């Protein structure tokens, strides 16, 4: 008994929609478009959904609005919002509810029109009273502070941070949906305008529109809906803080708890994982997460991204869609890690497909490295 119904549920449909710019579409429109695509991939219609998991950037009751929009009457309407990790915690809850028989078909959805709408990141929280007067440029300054500490403690370099962005761009160049493409070198990243030192603009995620959705059922029904289901082997979450000034240790995230727990549930270890999909809001994130998830020792995350180790052709592919840095970042990116992980373990990733990928790790981060959620997906033979 490890607290999770390993392999008892599976993702049977996944999709993205509107990566880039969508003038005239609301965030809800984009979320619905992604959902229709994901349901269609599973051979389903909105009326088949009886459990809904959603949070939108600009609608605190989006579960109710979404249900109304598509005329569905869910038994479970989950609006949990822990930031960008929310969708992975949604999956954790959905799997437990499916396994308990509380519902049969769970839909997890997200959409944002932040580029064509607001034109800047939309944040659902105001300035914290004890931080606001110092005018941190949030979110980037929070991650800059974490990067400064990691550099101080472990000698991590700006070049190593830049390697994270370069690796993401090389994957994006293989993904026709990615919003940013073209050559990007370490020197380009270092020469880019500094925003909040040590981070420059190419260390920061994109501001785009975009939606994503996944459909989850019990494994006994999964093969009726997908030729290649992605089985959920583990899902765990942890929260340490909200504001960056309250983070206990700026070099250790709650992924140090969610990661080992998800691996224990799945019965696998980091060296078994074929592809890793991380929420890379800023270049320091993947460095922290690879350490905290156990892919390398604490302090070695910077070196992990050197020499193309995580890039196409490298030994440990990371962020194979191009990530939030080069593919899509519509405010809360978390669900895109699950869509890409699903695509990879079901062999549907096209030119960026990692050959033989059977095990994928998806990891979401919410707030300011605050809330962390880890999911491990596997192809049929891993169950």
């Amino acid at each position, binding site marked *: 008994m490890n607290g999770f119904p390993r392999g008892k549920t599976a993702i049977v449909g996944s999709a993205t929609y509107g990566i880039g710019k969508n003038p005239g579409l609301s965030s809800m429109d984009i979320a619905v478009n992604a959902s229709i695509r994901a349901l269609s991939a599973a051979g389903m219609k909105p009326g088949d959904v009886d459990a809904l998991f959603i949070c939108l950037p600009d609608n605190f009751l989006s579960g109710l609005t979404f249900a109304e929009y598509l005329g569905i009457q869910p038994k479970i309407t989950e609006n949990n919002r822990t930031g960008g990790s929310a969708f992975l915690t949604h999956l954790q809850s959905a799997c437990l509810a499916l396994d308990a028989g509380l519902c049969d078909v769970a839909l997890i959805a997200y959409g944002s029109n932040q580029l064509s709408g607001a034109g800047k990141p939309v944040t659902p929280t105001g300035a914290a009273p*004890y931080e606001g*007067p110092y*005018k941190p440029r949030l979110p980037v300054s929070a991650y800059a*502070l*974490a990067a400064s500490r990691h550099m101080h403690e472990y000698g991590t370099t700006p070049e190593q941070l830049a390697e994270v962005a370069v690796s993401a761009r090389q994957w994006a160049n293989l993904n026709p949906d990615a919003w940013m493409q073209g050559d990007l070198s370490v020197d380009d990243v270092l020469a880019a305008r500094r925003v909040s030192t040590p*981070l420059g603009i190419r260390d920061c995620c994109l501001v785009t529109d975009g939606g994503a959705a996944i459909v989850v059922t019990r494994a006994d029904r999964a093969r009726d809906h997908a030729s290649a289901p992605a089985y959920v082997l583990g899902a765990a979450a942890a929260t340490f803080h909200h504001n960056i000034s309250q983070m206990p240790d*700026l070099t250790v995230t709650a992924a140090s708890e969610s990661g080992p727990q998800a691996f224990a549930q799945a019965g696998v270890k980091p060296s078994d994982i074929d592809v890793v999909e991380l929420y890379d809001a800023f270049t320091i994130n993947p460095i922290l997460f690879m350490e905290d998830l156990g892919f390398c020792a604490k302090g070695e995350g910077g070196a992990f991204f050197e020499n193309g180790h995580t890039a196409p052709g490298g030994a440990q592919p990371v962020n194979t869609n191009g990530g939030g840095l080069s593919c899509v970042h519509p405010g809360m990116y978390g669900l895109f890690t699950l869509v890409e992980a699903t695509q990879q373990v079901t062999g549907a990733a096209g030119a960026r497909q990692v050959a033989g990928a059977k095990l994928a790790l998806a990891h979401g981060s919410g707030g300011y490295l605050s809330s962390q959620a880890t999911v491990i997906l596997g192809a049929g033979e891993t169950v």
Partner: protein
Amino acid sequence: MTERSTGIRPEREYREHLADGRFMLLRSRSSGRCMFYPRVAEPVTGNTDLEWVEASGDGTVYATTAVNQRPPTPAYNVALIDLAEGPRMMSRVEGVAAEDVRIGMPVKARIIDEDGAPLLVFDPA
């Protein structure tokens, strides 16, 4: 109208002390620990036996960033400061260029007036 709540009013009292020229921290009498930011109960223990104590103003830079602005306006500093009493807070270090603030640098608190309100900043000690 009568105010119904009793005990600590954290943010209001913190700011009133600051306006009086005093940097005060909340401390639990039973645990002896100080907290920042001020709260109605101590984290983890839930202790409500709280009292205001004056901070030494001594601190150390834990993390730092220079926030760039459109030139020629210079960058400004945002830092996390570990207070001698234990808690950590966000602030900024003044008196040196934003980029020259170093982790581990000893600093000393000072209360300034900014945008019509008292604000705690730090100088190199």
